[in-house]
């Protein structure tokens, strides 16, 4: 038995024994996500147990080093773990911007002290992180950060406002882009700071979206403070960290959109109009087929991206391609699901309808699709900019 086969066998046994039934085969829906944090909400006792057991093994972040709370697995082992989890329908133990965004940034740019301080709590789901990038009115011009940070007596004092802070009202800490050097060109004067949200200087206000959600917040900084040491990367080098993370975010949104939520489109079609009913509506059927074709292509492209990553031969522009394509396909899919479900489900109480109303935001967030096209034109095609 090879090492890999041994690892698979062992993992299978452990998962079977440790993944509670209540953490298996759950729909991929917001209400089933475990976000952890200082005041955690547990969808079920089984899911709490599942997080604790996985965190114990470091398997919430299988590829992070063990010393920082990770599983210390290599890429191949991590893939095996993912396959084995999928096999028994194990739910993701922990949803976390700490895992998806801050963690990779700390691993790349953080000091050893920062890693020890923050990564284990992320891995265990003990601290829930928010992202403070966008500002009101700035939109796509992320680097036009106006929130100011001044160093006063060994502490950063921060004033300003962020927007689109995901679950800002439920998070414990925030990583934020802050302008610390006002007198240099805009990309060079930004620092990447970490702040505790449990202080008077930080308040949040939820923004209601057209889909009825209020997951996003405005976050106000009014003389908020954090220790001088809570800066990731050098002073004024925050844009480098931000760009690194934007790449991650882009690929994430693209893949999540590409993979889709809810029932597969062909199943929705069969369950509503049925095959014969759909054939009586060829125009609708064709749009469905085109969407399925697009999704299959996305799925294959994601497979290739993983293969390329393994071969250290990534096309650096593929994340933009997936973000652009995945979000547009996702919007079209949600719209088609609505057309199939019929008018009685076009209510705010319907999950498919809410997914449809959420979909446009994905084409805007994480660098709007126009920004992705600009990036592809400039970096992949090297087309000149107008002077």
């Amino acid at each position, binding site marked *: 038995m090879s090492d890999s086969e041994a690892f698979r066998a062992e993992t299978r046994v452990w998962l079977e024994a440790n993944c509670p039934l209540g953490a298996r085969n759950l729909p991929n829906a917001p209400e089933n996500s475990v976000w952890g944090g200082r005041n955690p909400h547990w969808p079920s006792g089984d899911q709490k147990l599942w997080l604790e057991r996985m965190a114990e093994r470091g398997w919430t972040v299988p590829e992070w080093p063990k010393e920082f709370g990770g599983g210390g697995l290599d890429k191949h082992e991590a893939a095996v773990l993912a396959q084995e989890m999928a096999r028994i329908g194990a739910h993701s133990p922990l949803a976390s911007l700490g895992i998806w965004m801050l963690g990779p940034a700390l691993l790349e740019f953080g000091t050893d002290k920062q890693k020890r301080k923050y990564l284990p709590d992320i891995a265990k789901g003990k601290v829930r992180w928010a992202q403070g990038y966008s500002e009101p009115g700035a939109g*796509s011009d992320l680097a036009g950060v106006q929130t100011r940070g001044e160093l006063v007596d060994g502490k950063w004092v921060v004033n300003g406002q962020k927007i689109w802070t995901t679950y800002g009202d439920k998070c414990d800490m925030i990583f934020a882009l802050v302008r610390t050097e006002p007198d240099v060109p805009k990309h060079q004067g930004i620092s990447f700071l970490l702040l505790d949200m449990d202080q008077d200087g930080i308040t949040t206000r939820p923004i209601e*979206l057209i889909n009825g959600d209020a997951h996003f917040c405005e976050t106000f900084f009014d003389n908020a403070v954090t220790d001088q040491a809570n800066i990731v990367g050098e002073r004024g080098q925050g844009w480098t960290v931000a760009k690194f993370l934007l790449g991650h975010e882009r690929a994430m949104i693209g893949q999540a959109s590409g993979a889709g939520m809810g029932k597969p489109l062909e199943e929705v079609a069969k369950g509503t109009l049925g095959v014969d009913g759909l054939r009586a509506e*060829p125009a*609708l059927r064709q749009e469905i087929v085109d969407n399925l074709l697009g999704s299959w292509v996305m799925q294959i492209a994601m497979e290739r991206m993983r293969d390329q990553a393994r071969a250290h031969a990534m096309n650096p522009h593929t994340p933009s391609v997936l973000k652009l394509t995945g979000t547009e396909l996702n919007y079209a899919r949600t719209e088609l699901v609505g057309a199939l*479900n019929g008018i*009685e*489900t*076009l209510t705010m109480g319907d999950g498919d309808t809410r997914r449809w109303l959420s979909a446009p935001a994905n084409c805007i967030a994480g660098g709007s*699709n126009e920004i992705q096209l600009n990036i592809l034109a400039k970096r992949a095609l090297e087309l000149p900019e107008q002077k």
Partner: protein
Amino acid sequence: MALVLNDDEVMLADATRGLLDRAAPVSAFRALRDSGDALRYSPELLAALAENGLVAPNIAEEDGGVGMGAAAVAVIVEQAAHNLAAAPLISAAMAAELIGWLGSPGQREALLSAIMTGELVVACALEEAGRHNPAKVETSFDNKVLTGRKTAVIDGVGAGRMLVSAANSDRVGLYLVDPAVDGCIVEAIAAVDGRNLATVRLDGAPAEALGGDDADEAISAAIDLGRALLAAELLGLADHAFDMTVSYLKERKQFDRIIGTYQALQHRAARLYARLDLARSVVLKALRALDEKSDETSLLASLAKCVMTELARDVLVEAVQMHGGIGVTDEFDLGLYFKRVRVSGDLLGDDRFHAERLAQEKWGL
């Protein structure tokens, strides 16, 4: 008639717009929506519109009406769409069409002037499938009672009367029912766009016939009218959202530039302008055909609904995208149009439904 608005129509549009801007700004619709009011339209607004002759102006002069045509109704509906004015205009025009066509003198007298004055809302219950399918009529009329289930009934909640299509032996007739009777249960569909929409369960509800037992032609005509009016509504919605977007493009700065200077956005906006320019002809053509009782009326109504459903959807998707984050927040008005366009688009058949109808009936494919 020529495919140009005549002077009367231009005056009608201006007058309607003037009234609505005073009596029904978008903020009034928003307040009504947030109030959770079950009726979802404003009786005061309905009364004000009626007072100005703007409710069901298609009622014939011999029935005491204004005797204007489909084009005039559409002018009003289009203006109302700009403001998301909450009033049962399309249902009134469709009901007037059906009653005018099929009603006995007594029925016409009892119903039409009450519709026109806004005292009575008569809803048309012609649909049975969640996804538009006019061929499906399983509700039956037997022993003077109706049994079945209707859906997507526009302005069905709180309606004073309902016109229900139902099978009587192998023919389809139209039946007048009082929703207050036993055996008629009206339930609201909480449509995302805040429109009054209902399902109706008929469980032996007593009803009287309008006309004989073959109402197919009148029902088709009313559906044609409804489709053309919804196309006009979609045109108003799309125009409004497009104008908002073009204004935004002229104001909003990103990377120290007015975003309207970005050529990629310019070309996308220009393509929408081109499609709106073309679509305007199509909507007017359908309305003229209705008023001239052309042989192609029904196909042209389908064309108008087809073109406007697709175009309005595309305009709103582009509008939201070009507005960026603000476009997906509830406090910004654009989202209201986004949702309304979806429901108006699906009512009486979306673009996909009509494209296929035309494929078969216009081109024999």
